[in-house]
């Protein structure tokens, strides 16, 4: 089996403002970011699909003590996309010091940003961002 949407293809999508995921032809579930199989039924009959890029904030934190190579404060959040999957990324366009529980359940639009200073081999990779709408 060839990997359906690779990390490189996912990254190229983000660069063009596209959120490339997978739709399962067996159970209909949407998987995003892509995995090897459907996140619900482990099926391999998958087709490429695009997220609308909208969702709601489920939880968040403001990082005050950052890992080496990153500058605090910044906000990390989990968002539930309209298509169903949860994603993690950075909440941007908001003052971290003014971010509190009121942000939960607020509607956000997906984007991406380049992060440098990550520990892994994927230097200068894109991660998801969320902006209030």
């Amino acid at each position, binding site marked *: 089996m060839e990997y359906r949407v690779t990390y490189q293809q996912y990254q190229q999508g983000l660069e063009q403002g596209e959120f490339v995921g997978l739709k399962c032809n067996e159970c209909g579930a949407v998987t995003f*970011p892509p995995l090897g199989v459907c996140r619900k039924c482990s099926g391999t009959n998958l087709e490429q699909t695009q997220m609308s890029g909208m969702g709601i904030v489920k939880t968040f934190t*403001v*990082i005050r003590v950052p*890992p080496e190579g990153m500058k605090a404060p910044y906000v990390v959040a989990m968002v539930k996309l309209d298509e169903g*999957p949860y*994603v993690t990324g950075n909440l941007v366009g908001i003052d971290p010091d003014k971010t509190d*529980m009121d942000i939960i359940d607020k509607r956000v639009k997906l984007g991406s940003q380049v992060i440098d200073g990550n520990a892994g081999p994927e230097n200068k990779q894109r991660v998801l961002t969320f902006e209030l709408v």
Partner: protein
Amino acid sequence: MREVAVCGVGMTKFGISEKTNLEMFAEAGIEAIEGSNIEPKDIEALFFGNCLGDFEEGQLHMAPFAAAELGLPRSAPATRFESACATATVAIRHAALLVGAGVYDVVLAGGTERATKMGTPLATKTFAMASQAQHESAAGMTFPGVFAMAAHMYASKYGIALGELKRHMAEVSVKNHYHGSMNPKAHFQKEIDVDTVLSGMMVADPLQLFDCCPFSDGAAAVVIADAAKARELVKKPIYIAGTGQAYGGPLYLQEDLTRVRARELASKQAYREAGLSPEDIDVVELHDCFTIAEILAVESMGFYEFGKGFDAATKGETRLKGRVVVNPSGGLKAKGHPIGATGAAQVTEIVEQLREESGPRQVEGARVGMVDTLGGDFGTVCNIILRS
């Protein structure tokens, strides 16, 4: 499967150490071997835990060097286990499985970690490497950050004001420091109060410094043997009644961070294998890497209903002399958290409790104890139930 038991146990003092990973593991290992009334040559295999030796000391492939430090037979396979903070528990579970299967009769399992050598920024970065690299640690996720998000989700899901939840979380820290004040091997041996917690530096909203366990150095090890053999070796073998292990995957697949599904599955396996239920457990060592983590754990292990465990410490129910004593050692919070050693130290505490050797922090009449260790951002959970 044959019945399996723990014989001798050993651990170093946890805290800040100038000793190498190997030196610390040798101290713990020799203590465990001597406590089993055997010699190093009697050990048939080493199940060795270490997470970050490459960053701490530039040392990969530490297991054979650990075996050499202890003078184990060259024929004894020495294998490294790495499951983030659950490392040593996973090593011990696999040791128990292979002894139970009859492959070995007597083995050594445990772990070592020298986390403070890295300093806080590098330690924060390397710990975060146990989050999914492409999508999650890349966004600057840290371990306090993961549990901070769980705390916000808990407050939101159950409709508890954040300020109120934080006071109950602080009581977890106060309770574990109280227990740690009676443990001469604990990293921190002094009591604190709720104000200490609530006035601490903010690490990741809403977690403050005293909501978080420290980076620590230390090692712990246990000898595991076939039960019949164990009865020949020691007066009070402590039997492994059941174990379980499950995985969570990346946070984005876990969705509801208030429900640690990996723990629900792992603890169910352990209860089923032991033929026991949460009501049967007298004493627990569980993964309080952050105050909210203890609250999530007492719920997902079945001691409290979901959404009802947040005030357990406040009510004194998880304190010494309480209904189910949680973390009499001081837990990760006060005893310390050398990640590769933590699970073996938890097993050591439960074994000593069931042998009634725990001094002022002894849980009276404890007959059944449970170990719970969580690796990464709920990525691995491993449970072990022990009985006297």
